[in-house]
């Protein structure tokens, strides 16, 4: 959503509250939820917190209703029109950890599936004791542009997550997208197919928190290539060669916090932001637009330091699109210097990794490379892969410099690293750009002998190749479970099988 103070005030002014509505018989307090459900062409939840939510849709409806009884919705909110032909209804004063139902069009009853549970209060745990996060990267293959080669693959990854979740019955609380959410160019139509039609059921129930990837930038103004824009200007978007430049649809489709509306420090831009969900602090950085300009990147870094300095959550998870470490097909973080489209990998590694180390970040997720790669528990590794040294950069088993710890089973990491003398100064970096396609070769820019073999990444026993590589070229996604005592990250395949898992203990 384009930030507009006037619109924001208007929305706030018309926001509904559960306490304000009454079942009284006079006209003023009469339940206005007497309309008819109007099926929107897209529907999503945004900025779900412990006490508020934005219901956003595209369609003719101009109001929404909500309540705790699906057959008696009693809080009416007039929606506001926002950029990109969307409508937004803001509901406030909700109770934490409470199930609500809603309708679009002000119907008194909620259609099946239109429900959500508000988050826990800041620092509190969800009722089930665990915050569950689902992360997908480069997932946007569900539309026409990728149908020929990757039909159904994003849906298969979604099915894998559903199978996994069905296994223990614990639903996803937070849904995160790691960029390249809608191939080929992140157009509104690409988003319709690759996001709204692919994840429709989930988007109605769980708030989605994205980051911007290179394929959100169309063919660009400065650089007219699918997924290759090096412009730092969000208004330089072109979906086709003949279009006039316009604003990237990403910023109209999503309504992201700029003023700390969901926790975190105000960023003043939707390009990067943070939020809290119970015991976890989340940060979404912009390695695509803000990272392309020195001044903008510096401002983002200053904001990040302020944000993390103000954060005292149990766990901190950061997402951005361009991974600091990768030996993915066509995206080798060691050669980012020579390839303008991969330069953010180097910038993020050199300028932001030290901040993550200093300020207690636990996990960092990126995409860009269409594979799964996961690092050791790292600190102070800002160089290329040939500079990686387990003794200098990795958590060790029994302080043995030749034995970097895997984080698996008995080698679970400790947030207060023993190798660092009991200080929280280490981060696990994961590339998970394989939620819509998985590259089956090194491509023509990454040398085959180094593909999926970054020294700072961990060997993957589930690999089909011997000797084992440090990555997996299969489809999948990541589920993170954050309890009071542990943070567990699981890479799951299309069948819901766990192929890699590690734990950090508090």
């Amino acid at each position, binding site marked *: 959503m*384009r*930030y*507009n*103070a006037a619109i924001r005030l208007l929305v706030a002014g018309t926001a509904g509250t559960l306490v304000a509505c009454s079942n009284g018989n006079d006209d003023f307090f009469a339940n206005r939820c007497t309309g008819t459900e109007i099926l929107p062409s897209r529907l999503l939840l945004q900025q779900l917190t412990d006490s508020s939510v934005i219901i956003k849709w595209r369609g003719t409806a101009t109001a929404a209703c909500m309540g705790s009884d699906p057959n008696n919705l009693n809080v009416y909110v007039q929606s506001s029109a926002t950029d990109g032909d969307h409508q937004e209804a803001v509901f406030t004063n909700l109770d934490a950890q409470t199930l609500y139902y809603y309708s679009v069009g002000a119907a008194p009853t909620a259609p099946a599936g239109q429900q959500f549970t508000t988050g826990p209060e800041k620092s509190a745990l969800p009722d089930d004791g665990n915050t569950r996060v689902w992360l997908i990267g480069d997932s946007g293959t569900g539309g026409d*542009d*990728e149908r020929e080669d990757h039909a159904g693959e994003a849906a298969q990854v979604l099915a894998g997550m559903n199978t996994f979740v069905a296994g223990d019955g614990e639903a996803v609380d937070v849904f995160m997208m790691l960029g390249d959410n809608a191939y*080929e160019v992140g157009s509104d139509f690409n988003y319709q197919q690759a996001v709204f039609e692919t994840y429709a059921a989930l988007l109605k129930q769980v708030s989605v928190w994205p980051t911007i990837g290179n394929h959100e930038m169309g063919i660009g*103004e*400065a*650089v*007219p*290539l*699918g*997924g*290759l824009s*090096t*412009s*730092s*200007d*969000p208004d*330089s978007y072109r979906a086709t*060669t003949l279009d006039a430049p316009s604003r990237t649809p990403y910023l109209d489709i999503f309504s992201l916090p*700029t*003023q700390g509306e969901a926790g975190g*420090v*105000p*960023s*003043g*831009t939707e*390009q990067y932001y943070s939020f809290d969900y119970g015991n976890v602090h989340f940060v979404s950085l912009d390695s695509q637009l*803000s990272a392309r*300009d020195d*001044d*903008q990147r*510096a*401002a983002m870094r200053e*904001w990040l330091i*302020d944000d*993390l*300095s*103000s*954060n*005292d959550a149990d766990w901190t998870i950061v997402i951005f699109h361009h991974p600091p470490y990768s030996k993915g097909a*066509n995206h080798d973080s060691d050669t980012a210097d*020579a*390839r303008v*489209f991969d330069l953010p990998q180097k910038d993020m590694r050199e300028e932001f990794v030290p901040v993550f180390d*200093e*300020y*207690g970040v636990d996990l960092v997720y990126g995409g860009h490379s269409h594979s799964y790669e996961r690092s050791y528990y790292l600190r102070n590794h800002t160089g290329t892969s040939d500079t990686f040294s387990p003794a200098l950069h990795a958590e060790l088993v029994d302080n043995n410099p030749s034995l970097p710890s895997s984080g698996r089973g008995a080698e679970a990491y400790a*947030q*207060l690293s023993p190798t660092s003398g*009991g*200080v*929280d*100064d280490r981060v696990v970096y994961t590339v998970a750009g394989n939620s819509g396609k998985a590259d089956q070769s090194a*491509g*023509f*820019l990454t040398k085959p002998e180094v593909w999926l073999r970054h020294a700072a990444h961990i060997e993957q026993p589930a690999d089909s190749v011997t000797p084992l590589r440090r990555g997996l070229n299969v489809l999948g996604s990541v589920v993170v479970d954050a309890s009071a005592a542990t943070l567990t990250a699981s890479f799951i395949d299309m069948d819901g099988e766990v192929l890699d898992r590690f734990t950090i203990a*508090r």
Partner: protein
Amino acid sequence: MIRYHHWFLWSVLCLAGTASSHPGQHEQLDHINSLIAQQPDQQILYIRRGSIYATGAQFEQAMADFEQAERLGPAVQVALERGMAYYQMQEFDLATQYLDRYLQQFPHAAIAYEYRSRIARQKGDVRQAIADLHRYFELQDQPHPGNYLAAADMLHELHETAQALNLLDQGLDKLGLVPQLQQRAIELELERGTTAAAIARFATLRIPLQNSPSWKLQMAELLLLDDRHADAGMLLNQAETELRKLRPTPARIKLLQQVLALKKKLAAPVAATSD
């Protein structure tokens, strides 16, 4: 999905020399080439292809396409891309000429002002750079916070502190209470000796920065500049207590050391002055 042809990829890679190509680039080139084959008189296609070449640092091919585009339609339509390409080539005078030409025709193109500002700054023409950023701020609904900081820094270079503060306040009005803008304003307030104004500004950040130990330390430092020792001491005590409860990170360890050092300084008796 458009499939690329290996022979074509190879030829582009060879042409590129040391420049590298993104996988998506070939698909786009392939696509544009096919469009050019169908519509060889379409100006915009040559502009787009020229920009592709420019991105890959293939400036000779880029300029050839731009020249062809200029033959097929109004030259001004090519000026933005030409300006950007010359910017990449660090041919700043030529870049400025083309951006000027583009802006004469399209005076609301914020991106052209942004680029022209960068060029002017690199050329050392700070006043022009600031003027272009001002225009960019007027035209952009949601300017990036970093551009406000860049403009304020340039005004500061010119010793125009009041104007820099005014600009930062405009940014705060437009973007909301963004700590980075307010922090830069505080630095400027301190520099010009208006400590009370700096304290007032920093007080506005208490809630956005979540009353953190870091906020408390910085506020204590500001209060000490205003000789408010008791208030500063209270904040330092609170910060120390909070930091000791939080799990240690390198940043918190440093912060605690700073808090303790300041407390020690505060507690030290004032050295007696000899008459």
